[in-house]
């Protein structure tokens, strides 16, 4: 990892009337990193990316892309930056190839033959002379990625690239993003899917209602995630819960009509056999959400600040803290 930063934001704020879409966030993306911006819909991810692309003017704060800012350097800020916001849109009355030619012409310095190359990368060869009006959603997503590759980008910004695709399309898109990341580009990916981010990204910023709820490495995040819960339904939940009271290394909480049992495997085994022996029947025992997904929901749930203190975490260091919040 180099010392230079691809993207640096500090105290970045954007308000639309009474609504604050982005509230003083700070983000640092190093060159060569694969960085995820995660958050539920309305968290401000897209607004942040729009500010990066100069589509929207921030109200306060600093935003630098490879050391350049919009106010000082203008359109030069986008040198080496490619990508798309939400689902990419093209001119429906032009063919796919024509659309790319127009965009390549506006990019400047795109060598001849590059259009055919990128069409091949995203597997649209053969359909490029049809009008975009007849493209499927997945084809337009791929054309958007193709448009992003026209000039050699140093930073690739993808806003929910798998959004709206069918499972095969999602798998292919993730594979493509993975290959792009492996080729040395800095990739900035925004998503509401923790699973996708976990697979590809090194570092992540989790946003909630315009603020940063967490930023740091994926590995750190995994370490701080609450352990996976087992979901238990029994014939008498109250009695079962009472049986768990006072046991070390075991935490049983009621969750959505079921019991969430957390603890080491042996503790859970012992607990299940105990409740069966006391005459309570076990109706189902399944694994709950993946730890990171659970963590994601905890971090981004609205309401009073849901911080690490509220996580049920038997046997772990309660002083473990999460870096993040407002810089």
């Amino acid at each position, binding site marked *: 990892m180099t010392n230079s930063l691809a993207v640096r934001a500090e105290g970045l704020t954007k*308000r639309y*009337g*009474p*609504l*604050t879409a982005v*509230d003083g966030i700070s983000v640092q993306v190093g060159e060569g990193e694969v960085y995820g911006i995660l958050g539920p819909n309305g968290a401000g991810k897209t607004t942040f990316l729009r500010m990066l692309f100069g589509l929207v003017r921030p109200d306060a704060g600093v935003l630098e892309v490879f050391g350049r800012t919009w106010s000082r350097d203008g359109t030069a800020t986008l040198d080496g930056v490619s990508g798309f916001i939400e689902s990419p849109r093209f001119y429906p009355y032009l063919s796919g190839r024509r659309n790319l030619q127009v965009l390549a012409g506006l990019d400047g310095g795109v060598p001849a033959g590059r259009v055919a190359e990128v069409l091949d990368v995203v597997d649209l060869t053969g359909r490029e002379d049809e009008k975009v009006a007849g493209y499927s959603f997945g084809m337009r997503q791929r054309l958007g990625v193709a448009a992003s590759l026209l000039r050699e980008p140093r930073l690739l910004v993808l806003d929910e690239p798998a959004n709206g695709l069918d499972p095969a399309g999602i798998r292919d898109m993730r594979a493509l993003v993975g290959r792009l990341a492996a080729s040395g580009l800095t990739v900035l990916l925004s998503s509401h899917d923790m699973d996708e981010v976990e697979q590809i990204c090194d570092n992540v910023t989790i946003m909630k*209602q*315009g603020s940063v709820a967490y930023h740091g490495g994926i590995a750190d995040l995994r370490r701080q995630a609450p352990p996976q819960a087992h979901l238990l339904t029994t014939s008498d939940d109250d009695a079962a819960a009472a049986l768990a009271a006072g046991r070390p290394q075991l935490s049983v909480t009621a969750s959505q009509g079921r019991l969430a049992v957390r603890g080491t495997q042996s503790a859970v085994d012992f607990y299940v056999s105990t409740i069966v022996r006391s005459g309570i029947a076990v109706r189902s025992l399944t694994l709950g959400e993946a730890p990171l997904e659970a963590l994601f929901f905890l971090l981004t749930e609205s309401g009073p600040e849901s911080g690490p203190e509220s996580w049920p975490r038997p046997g772990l260091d309660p002083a473990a803290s999460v870096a993040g919040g407002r810089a």
Partner: protein
Amino acid sequence: MTVTTSLPSARRCLAPAAGVLAVVGLVVGLTAAGSPDVTRARVERSLTPSFTRLYVDQQRVLGHEVPAASVAARSACDRGGPQVADVGAGADWICLVDFTDQTGVHQQGKFELQVHANACYTAAGPAKLLGGFTIPDTRGRDVTNPLSAFDVCFDPDA
């Protein structure tokens, strides 16, 4: 969610309201300024030479070569009677043109003018004196009478 105070609604309306006021003021100012484009002098000064030329053309069609100088036309125009000022566009302009016809007799034709705001007018000539819509040419064919109705434009700044 952080809620910030927005501009009070009164201030929000200020800029467009000022813009509308400015435009209205400009329109009113422009309308009040300047002198009328259509004046009696301009109408008379443009009608006289036009009539002369068209009379010469008409006489040529009928077979008489009349020199323009001998027509000696003079126009006197009036809009809508003594009560109405002789300025401005309208369909109520009446012009009396005194001229010497090709036989040397003094004649007076009454023309009805429809004057438009763009400094142009359509003049309709007296049918009894100067012929109707068509006149017979030297070969007996009916051709359009150049004097029955004709268009004239004048310089609004002359």
